[in-house]
């Protein structure tokens, strides 16, 4: 007797590998009289599917059945034959929408684990790439693959990752974020200690650095460990651009990170506590611009920041076709009219807009989200204690960042603890020719 779930199997495979060989056997004698032996012989020599095996328990057979395998029962046999006839439809490989590049490969991960592994393996054709598969989720039975290069990744790190994934106790895994939250170091920290990417070339680079990647079936986002702050501020495209350009862009990104975190709080802190620091002409024009504005500086800044966050959220949720309406309403109606009506001063709009643009320079979505939240904290501190408050905030942030680790790597490495070679690599994009010279 054959058993399969209609929606999970590929009918063509089923017919070619299982049905036709079995049907053509009808006229021939059975390979063996003993049912168990006969089943094994059928698996071995008759069924032409790439994978076929005999399992002994019903649980194992049901798990396979749920994955789209076909079961073959033989009357009197001790086991059940499972035949790989899986046929899950998958989206075509498209450009990763969360991280597009100007120059560089354009393929992105899809929801199928097999395709994703193949995308990575295609880039590193080496036998030392290891793919360890695990199953996670007591209900969903999601397949998870841990990828590493076995002579580059530290064995204890791999072991630790496997152990952490093994400990995961959850009903279902619908996205790699589930795994990320369950295996990350310092889970209470706002900062992401697990890197996530949608790009196979990124994962390939990570593997070659000796780091470990985790692919989760059903999610196009791969995870990588260890992950430090500097990793989150790097993009793969840095390596695809000419080294001076890439270095410049990387510095811009560092500046953007700081601006995103500090600009509104410096604006609020300086104006409410230290207006003497503002150059006279600038102070004069800020004073004029603020004349008649009903809100204090803090309120104004917070209002505009909130408005911007709402706008951003709205534009993510909106269908693409009416997305442009958001920009018209947001930019023209709120920005322009609020200033003209004298509700918000134009310096506040400029500050919020500059912060927003700076926030888009951070390549990691999760880090950008963290900074967005911390920005509000910084603004509140600045409104209470001025620049002194900002310094308190930065110190607390520094203490926190230097206390967390990602899989044994300090989060601020290579800046603190200072490692010269890695530091240079982080600050500058060292050209390949210089790197090769060092290796000799």
């Amino acid at each position, binding site marked *: 007797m054959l058993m399969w779930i209609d929606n999970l199997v590929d009918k063509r495979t089923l017919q070619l590998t299982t049905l036709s060989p079995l049907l053509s056997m009808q006229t021939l004698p059975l390979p063996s009289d003993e049912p168990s032996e006969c089943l094994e012989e059928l698996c071995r020599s008759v069924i032409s599917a790439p994978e076929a095996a005999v399992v002994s328990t019903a649980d194992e057979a049901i798990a396979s059945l749920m994955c789209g395998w076909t079961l073959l029962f033989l009357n009197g046999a001790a086991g059940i034959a499972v035949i790989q006839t899986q046929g899950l439809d998958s989206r075509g490989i498209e450009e990763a929408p969360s991280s597009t590049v100007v120059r560089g490969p354009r393929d992105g991960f899809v929801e199928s684990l097999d395709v994703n592994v193949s995308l990575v393996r295609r880039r590193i054709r080496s036998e030392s790439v290891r793919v360890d598969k695990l199953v996670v989720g007591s209900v969903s039975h999601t397949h998870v693959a841990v990828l590493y290069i076995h002579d580059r990744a530290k064995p204890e790190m791999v072991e630790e990752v496997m152990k952490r994934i093994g400990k995961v106790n959850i009903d279902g895994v619908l996205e790699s974020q589930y795994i990320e939250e369950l295996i990350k170091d310092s889970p209470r920290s706002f900062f992401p200690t697990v890197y996530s990417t949608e790009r196979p070339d990124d994962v390939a680079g990570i593997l070659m650095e000796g780091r470990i990647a985790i692919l989760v079936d059903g999610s196009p986002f791969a995870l990588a460990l260890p992950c430090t702050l500097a990793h989150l501020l790097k993009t793969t495209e840095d390596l695809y651009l000419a080294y001076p350009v890439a270095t410049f862009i990387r510095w811009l990104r560092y500046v953007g990170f700081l601006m995103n975190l500090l600009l509104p709080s410096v604006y609020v802190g300086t*104006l409410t506590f230290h207006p*003497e620091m503002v150059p006279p002409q600038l102070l004069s024009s800020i004073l004029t611009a603020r004349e008649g504005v009903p809100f204090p500086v803090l309120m104004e800044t917070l209002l505009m920041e909130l408005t911007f966050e709402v706008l951003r959220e709205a534009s993510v949720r909106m269908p693409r076709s009416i997305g442009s309406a958001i920009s018209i309403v947001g930019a023209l109606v709120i920005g322009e009219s609020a200033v003209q009506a004298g509700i918000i001063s134009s310096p506040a709009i400029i500050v919020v807009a500059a912060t927003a643009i700076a926030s888009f320079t951070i390549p990691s979505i999760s880090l950008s989200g963290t900074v967005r939240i911390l920005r509000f904290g910084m603004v509140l501190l600045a409104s209470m204690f001025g620049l002194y408050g900002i310094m308190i905030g930065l110190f607390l942030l520094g203490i926190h960042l230097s206390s967390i680790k990602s899989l044994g790597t300090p989060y601020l490495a290579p800046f603190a603890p200072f490692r010269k070679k890695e530091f240079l690599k982080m600050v500058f994009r060292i050209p390949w020719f210089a790197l090769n010279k060092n290796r000799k």
Partner: protein
Amino acid sequence: MKAVKAGICLLAVTLISGCWGQINFDQLTIVSAIGLDPAKNNMIRVTLQLSNPTLPVAAGGGSQQRRPFVNYDAVGVTIQEAVERIQHQAKKSLFFPQTKVVLISEQFARRGLDDTLDYFWRETNQNLNSWVLVSRMPARHVLDKAMELEPVPADEWRKYLEGDWKRPLQVDVQMYQFLPRLNQTGYQAVSPGIGPFNKSGKSDIMEIGDTAVFKNDRMVGWLSGEESQIVNWLTGASRRGSFHTDLAQEESVSFSLHSVRAKLIPVLSGGRLSMKLLLKGEAEVLTATVPLHFGSEHAMLRDVLNRQLTTAIEKTIDKVFRQFGSDVIGFGETLHRRMPAEWKKRKPDWDEEIRGLDADISVSFEVKRSGLLH
């Protein structure tokens, strides 16, 4: 427990700092100039010029109809008292950290400043980078009547005084340099003067020029532009200048001078202190009322320049030392650096000492160029 400890630390950091004082930003008015005048009964009249912020012309502020500045004045025993009275008139919060100039009227300066200016040392919310000017007429009138191209006159004055191109005929001094020199025996204060150029009508054009010389905290006299230039060279404030020499009756040659370097050397001979002054530099002919042959008359030009410069410097030093008895070129400080023991001995009578000081002046300028003309 850990959280409690962290909380205590945070609370300490925020509460012990003393960094309080939010400023009511929207009520802020910038004080752009402070004027100090004497008043009856040894009181002080303080005039504050409050600037009314206007949008820059580029941002469409050109057509705004509002007074660019308003002057308030009040009398008090101390500056602080007068400022508090002004606060009642102006209502808005006075913002001192961006004050551009402090005007001290001549009368007030001659009365002595020591017992009043400590306000500028003690008050934290003010600008030690503001420029000090001594006004020939009451400071209040200068502030009321001044008419400049910029809407707020103090802005214009500040820009003129802080310009990178140091005007050699002009001394300039900021509050942080001016205040300590009021009490410094070996290097006394000077300040540029300001006064009306022509007293024609309601508003006057103010001229910044000449130099007020202080002896301790009291102003003693004025130096002309040319003398200010020499003081500037001797203190090292300026390296450039111009000089007119009289070649013959009604014939003169003007030089532009560069890389002027002065060296003051105290010389002790037999217990008698004298000053040796070396001045070096380069000169360039700017104008001449007679035809010159640069090749053959080169040496003559140089000698005339050096001779007449020496005379001018002698006159200036004579005026400063003998007439005013004030050490504005900082010779006392030079002695302090070179011979500390000698300075200690002579410091108490330094005012008397410099009156009888001999100056040995040697000037060596080279005439390098004759301009574009041969």
